[in-house]
């Protein structure tokens, strides 16, 4: 029975080459795009080195300093009541924001107030990205660098290619050392390994390369740095300034992702207790903490509210994917409907020879399942091929797309669902068709 259905499904598919092609193309192309998009998202946002522990991270992203001034409003309400005027006066007291400045935090603030977060297992401080111009044979090369504490390497698991990370003593002694990415090594030395112990000249300083790490695929935040130096090597004015604002970020590591909130709370609480040195300039301090995804979305969207930007980001992404899914699905439904309707004479014949309504229903559902499966297989092959091309070509050199089988499985299930659903309605209609009328329609053989 099934074998017979299978035969006819394949036959119909081959005969209606054009429609089958469109239908299959819809399914397989959708699946392929979905796989590529999720693979890219996974690279950007997934828990991979150096962000394997991202689920447990809290990013201290930004400080906001505000000057709030009292604001008194008097509201006079007059009502005319039978010719007499009643006046009602009310006052409201509130605060008004006079000025605000916001930026990444100052080292002073992070070091003095935020180094002792008890809810955190570990934390690190690192500078915003600085750009340095270096000259190699009179060619200018612009590098992006970060000054980081020793614990930076504990929290972000960069993958060492050779050499080592620098430790606390390098920080204490302001050692002129650097960990660089393979990309930087290639750009500076022309090779991406074998340069441990060699020197780079940055702003007239001789810096010794102690470690080479794999270049992270993402370019966001500090991940775009090609050069990591001990925190204490930064221009000392950054470290001695008592400004609350400017230049540094901290990342805290919680024991588990559930414990992140405790860290956020503690950071907020400790910050609220700070006595600001110049209340006439700023009298309110607010700290913004975020998860990696929130942080990412915030920077991508140029927004100020981490939770909000995360929702915007996720919703628009979801919306786009949905839209992308709906179009081929409608196409699939449409094609299935017409594909089935035009076979009324075959159905009339089958019924005349004893097929009952259910037999007809099952036949078409089975056919649609087959069609969807073929589409799924083609989609799988297309995606694999595309992944292979992207990964093996040097178009995106740092990018290794990995196939997410789970996403494929679920998208395929969705396709299957719609494949079955779209077959169900016309098949049901056909299973109820009047035999004589069906036979009168364009007879084939």
């Amino acid at each position: 029975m099934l074998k017979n259905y299978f035969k006819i499904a394949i036959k119909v598919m081959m005969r209606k080459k054009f429609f089958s092609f469109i239908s299959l193309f819809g399914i397989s192309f959708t699946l392929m795009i979905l796989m590529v998009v999720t693979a890219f998202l996974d690279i950007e946002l997934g828990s991979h080195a150096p962000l394997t522990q991202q689920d447990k991270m809290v990013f201290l992203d930004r400080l906001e300093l505000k000057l709030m001034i009292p604001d008194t409003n008097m509201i006079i309400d007059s009502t005319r009541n039978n010719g007499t005027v009643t006046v009602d006066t009310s006052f409201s007291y509130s605060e008004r924001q006079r000025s605000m400045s916001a930026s990444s935090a100052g080292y002073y603030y992070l070091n003095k107030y935020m180094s002792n977060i008890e809810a955190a297992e570990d934390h690190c401080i690192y500078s915003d990205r600085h750009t340095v111009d270096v000259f190699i044979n009179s060619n200018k090369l612009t590098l992006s660098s970060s000054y980081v504490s020793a614990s930076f390497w504990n929290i972000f698991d960069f993958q060492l290619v050779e050499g080592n990370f620098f430790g606390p003593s390098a920080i204490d002694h302001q050692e002129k050392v650097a960990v660089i990415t393979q990309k930087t090594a290639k750009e500076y030395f022309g090779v991406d390994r074998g340069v441990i112990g060699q020197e780079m000249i940055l702003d007239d300083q001789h810096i010794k390369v102690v470690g080479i790490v794999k270049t992270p695929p993402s370019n966001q935040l500090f991940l775009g740095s090609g050069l990591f130096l001990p925190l204490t090597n930064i221009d000392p004015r950054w470290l001695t300034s008592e400004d609350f604002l400017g230049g540094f970020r901290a990342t805290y590591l919680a024991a588990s992702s559930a414990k992140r909130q405790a860290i956020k709370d503690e950071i907020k609480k400790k910050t609220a207790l700070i006595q600001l040195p110049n209340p006439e300039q700023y009298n309110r301090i607010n700290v913004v903490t975020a998860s990696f995804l929130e942080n990412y979305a915030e920077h991508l969207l140029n927004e100020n509210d981490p939770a909000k930007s995360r929702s915007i980001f996720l919703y628009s992404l979801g919306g786009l994917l949905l839209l992308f899914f709906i179009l081929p699905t409608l196409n699939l439904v449409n094609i299935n409907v017409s594909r089935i309707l035009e076979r009324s004479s075959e159905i009339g014949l089958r019924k005349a020879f004893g097929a009952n309504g259910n037999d007809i229903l099952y036949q078409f559902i089975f056919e649609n399942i087959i069609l969807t499966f073929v589409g799924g297989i083609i989609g799988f092959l297309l995606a694999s091929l595309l992944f292979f091309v992207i990964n093996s070509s040097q178009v995106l050199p740092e990018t290794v797309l990995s196939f997410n089988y789970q996403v494929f499985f679920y998208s395929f299930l969705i396709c299957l669902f719609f494949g079955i659903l779209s077959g169900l309605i016309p098949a049901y209609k056909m299973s109820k068709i009047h035999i004589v009328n069906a036979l009168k329609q364009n007879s084939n053989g």
Partner: protein
Amino acid sequence: MIKLQNINKVYRTKTVETLALNNINLTIPAGEFLSIMGPSGCGKSTLLNIMGLIDEPSEGSIEIAGQTLPDYNAKSIAKFRNEKLGFIFQSFHLINDLSIIDNVELPLLYRRVGSKERKALAEEALIKVGLKNRMQHFPGQLSGGQKQRVAIARAIVGQPDIILADEPTGNLDSSMGNEIMDILLRLNQEQGTTIVMVTHDESMARKTNRLIRLFDGNQVQ
């Protein structure tokens, strides 16, 4: 045996009401080869379809093989058709996407016969109509006469008691028509299959046991 009593069939459309069959009473004993003749539009196909339980009369009762119909549901009527009846149509109605042998197997498919047995029975039926060496062909590769022989093989594969043929030779030239007619006659004589055949061809009709004529929905002979 088929027994029709007081069969009326009315087609109603928005503008006209057609009385396709008017008070038909007909008894066909088991083993008879009956032909139905009459001008175009007189209700021959309608009558055959009602006998074949693929169309319902507006009034009247049908008794086939001792069962009075229609008094049970669509599913059991489907089963009844599958086991007792075989159809042959003027326009063959083969499924172009299936090979000849798969076409012939079709009635057995709905009888839940295993695939090996299906193959064997279909092969046997194709041998009877002289198409043994065409089993793996497709309908598109056959002549009209060959297609109709496939249709006959499909109608007899399940060994039904009754075969209903609506102008089986209508689309064929006379020599091919005679071939088809010979197969049907042999079936009737050797297996005792009851056959009801609609035809426009007097010479074909004369070869059968009995002939009835319809005119404007009435039986006139």
